[in-house]
């Protein structure tokens, strides 16, 4: 409402955020995992007095310098850029409330990069004891970035007591904070193991260390595959009731009919967790000699998919909010919507950025619908509204007004605006739908 929005046809705004976010999460969790993997492995190597293993750690750590500092930071900025443009209201809201957390996170991240750089460049120069200390510092700081950012991410889904007390700490340590932290930590370990597998697999086969390090890295997955299912269950029970219901309503009459996409994707998340466990066992642990690049590619793809699927599930679970109980995903404040039962309260005056010459309907479309719907691409309105005329669209819009009678209230923000405004939106949509029938 308060800011102009970035319009992306085709994949839509959420698609862009999604792509950047999944990559960002994948890489940054990789980095956190590396923060644990490297010092632990170094510690074990030193304890065993295994020079080869130590050398492996050294080679391995270079990747994390690049990954963490360059790629991680780049994607981090990218995601800020994207969410700022696509959903400026929500971004503004989060910044207003959690600027402290982000500051803290940035500090941890800075320290992490710092200690990592020292860790990498100090392999040959620092004394083992000092180097190990730097390593532990690297581990601690990288974990702390996760500990911090996890608060903001979980807040958006389950604001908990924050809705009442507006306390920073209530928001940070909200109901899903701990299970989410556990799951993300497990994922970090798994990803660390995954990268361990990659570097180990690139060692020459004749090298005995190859088999050793492959099996060593594979063991890093064990906590994930043992504890993840408990983490998921814990997370589920800590979800707000509406979200639980939503996950379950996707399975209403459990398993009958084509399940809601949300449920299907969360099922796939669980499924991939299992198959990846088997892939790592059959591929890396039991058969290290044949664990080659081709196989790793598919393991990576699977990991990427499961990360994406998990994040996507979390995002969609938030529906119809972008920030639980507080702000709908189109930027309309829940507080506003709840008082809009009377049909005469206008919304158009709150739209502060208008394109020159655009109708009220178009402006409303851009503000209220565009963050989730494109015309022809992602969740395409032309297809959804196919065959409806203006009047029928108006009726539909009226049904979608705030209140318990709105059948879409669990999955879509309510439509707000006066009768005249809704008519204007309906007119605009009706013209668009009639103008270029979807070819699907």
């Amino acid at each position, binding site marked *: 409402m308060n800011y102009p929005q970035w319009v992306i046809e085709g994949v839509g705004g959420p698609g862009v955020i999604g792509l950047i976010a999944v990559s960002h999460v994948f890489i940054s969790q990789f980095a956190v995992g590396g923060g644990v993997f490297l010092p632990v492995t170094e510690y074990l190597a030193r304890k065993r007095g295994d020079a080869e293993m130590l050398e492996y750690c050294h080679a391995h750590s270079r990747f994390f310098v690049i990954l963490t500092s360059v790629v991680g930071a780049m994607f981090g900025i990218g995601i800020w850029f994207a969410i700022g443009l696509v959903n400026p209201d929500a971004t503004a809201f989060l910044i207003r409330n959690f600027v402290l957390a982000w500051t803290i996170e940035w500090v941890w991240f800075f320290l992490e990069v710092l200690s990592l750089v020292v860790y990498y460049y100090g392999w040959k120069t620092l004394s083992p004891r000092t180097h190990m200390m730097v390593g532990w510092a690297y581990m601690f700081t990288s974990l702390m970035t996760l500990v911090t950012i996890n608060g903001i991410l979980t807040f958006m889904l389950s604001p908990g007591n924050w809705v009442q007390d507006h306390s920073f700490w209530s928001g940070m340590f909200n109901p899903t904070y701990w299970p989410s932290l556990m799951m993300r930590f497990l994922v970090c370990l798994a990803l660390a193991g995954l990268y361990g597998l990659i570097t180990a697999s690139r060692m020459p086969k004749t090298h005995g260390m190859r088999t050793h390090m492959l099996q060593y890295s594979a063991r890093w997955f064990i906590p994930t595959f043992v504890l993840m299912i408990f983490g998921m269950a814990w997370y589920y029970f800590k979800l707000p009731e509406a979200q639980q219901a939503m996950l379950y309503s996707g399975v209403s009459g459990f398993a009958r009919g084509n399940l809601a996409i949300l449920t299907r994707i969360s099922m796939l998340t669980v499924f991939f967790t299992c198959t990846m466990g088997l892939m790592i066992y*059959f591929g890396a642990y039991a058969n290290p000699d044949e664990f080659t690049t081709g196989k790793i590619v598919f393991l990576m793809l699977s990991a990427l998919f499961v990360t994406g699927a998990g994040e996507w599930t979390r995002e969609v679970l938030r529906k119809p909010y972008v920030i639980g109980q507080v702000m709908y995903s189109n930027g309309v404040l829940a507080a506003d919507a709840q008082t809009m039962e009377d049909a005469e309260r206008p919304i158009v005056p709150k739209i502060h950025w208008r394109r020159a010459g655009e109708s009220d309907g178009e402006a409303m479309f851009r503000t209220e619908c565009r963050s989730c719907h494109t015309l022809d691409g992602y969740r395409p309105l032309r297809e959804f509204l196919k065959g409806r005329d203006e009047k029928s669209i108006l009726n539909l819009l009226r049904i979608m007004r705030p209140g318990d009678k709105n059948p879409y209230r669990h999955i879509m923000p309510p439509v707000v605006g006066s009768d005249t405004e809704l008519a204007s939106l309906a007119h605009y949509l009706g013209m668009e739908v009639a103008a270029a029938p979807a070819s699907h």
Partner: protein
Amino acid sequence: MNIKDWITRFVEERLPVKAFKDLSAHKTVPEHKQDFWYYFGGISLFFFILLVFTGMVLLFQYQPGLESSHASVLRIVTKVDFGWLIRSIHSWAANLMLVAVIIHMFSVYFMKAYQKPRELTWFTGLGLLGLCMGLGFTGYCLVWDDMAFFATKIGIQIMETVPGGSYVANILRGGPGMGGLTIQRMFALHVVIIPWIFMALLGAHLFFLQIHGNKIPEGIEKSGKYGRVPFFPNFILSDLYVWLIALNLLAVLAALFPWPLGGEADPLAPAPKGIKPEWYFMAMFQLLKLMPAEVGPINGELFGNMLFGIAGAIWATVPIWNPATATGRRGKIAAYIGFAGIVWLISFTIWGYVAKPV
């Protein structure tokens, strides 16, 4: 581990464990830069196994019959717990299996793995491909929706243009027209008759493979740039790994793109516009569509079928006209034919999909 010892002894005293161990110790698989292609046979097998199991599960709910076929599939995908998923897996696995089988065939073709002493493996493999297509054709019909009905009808009509084809067509339809017996015939072929023949042929195929081992492409064999991996456990484990990849792919496709189900077939309605066969018949279908009504004195469709017959015969008999003893020229011809085959298959399939319905 007393129990483990006991089991080991129990088994050793009763089964020829040593013989198995000896066999598996000697069994190796070549390892080289093109060994990637070796996996496609195994992937096909994996999908086949999945198809057998999901097929059995579907069989508990699917009721063949003019009135019940479509209704029971509808019930499966809407009422039965996870029925939509099982059906989706079955359909997707069938299509993926055909993809894998076709890749497998072309890789074998280009590796010249059909040459002596592997001719029988090639022939049985072609037989299996034919049975796969048969399973696809018969299975497609069983849902008895609009598309299935007309695709089956047209498919059988095409058969009729071949001499003696009308006899086969009548057996398949259970009479001159499509009806309840057609479903029954397709059903019998799909769930019992073809699978049993398939199992027998598959047994032979695997037996021949076991005898001759995997073919190393000539160039690689001459260069000596290859190793040998023990079949057990290394290759088996690799196979399992690849199967898991296939399974993940299948899970994503089956869960996110559930196989659609059209409206119940209405034999009296005109064929819907743009009826198209399954993709694995598309290239053939598109070529047949190109045929004029008459080619010289011959019926166009018959001519097209003759063309397939000739092309198929050339393809199938490649071990005979390009044996291991043949000159390099024949090898080149074989390679050109192989490329032509791929090009035709891909281009005509795409063409078939983008072509305007007639």
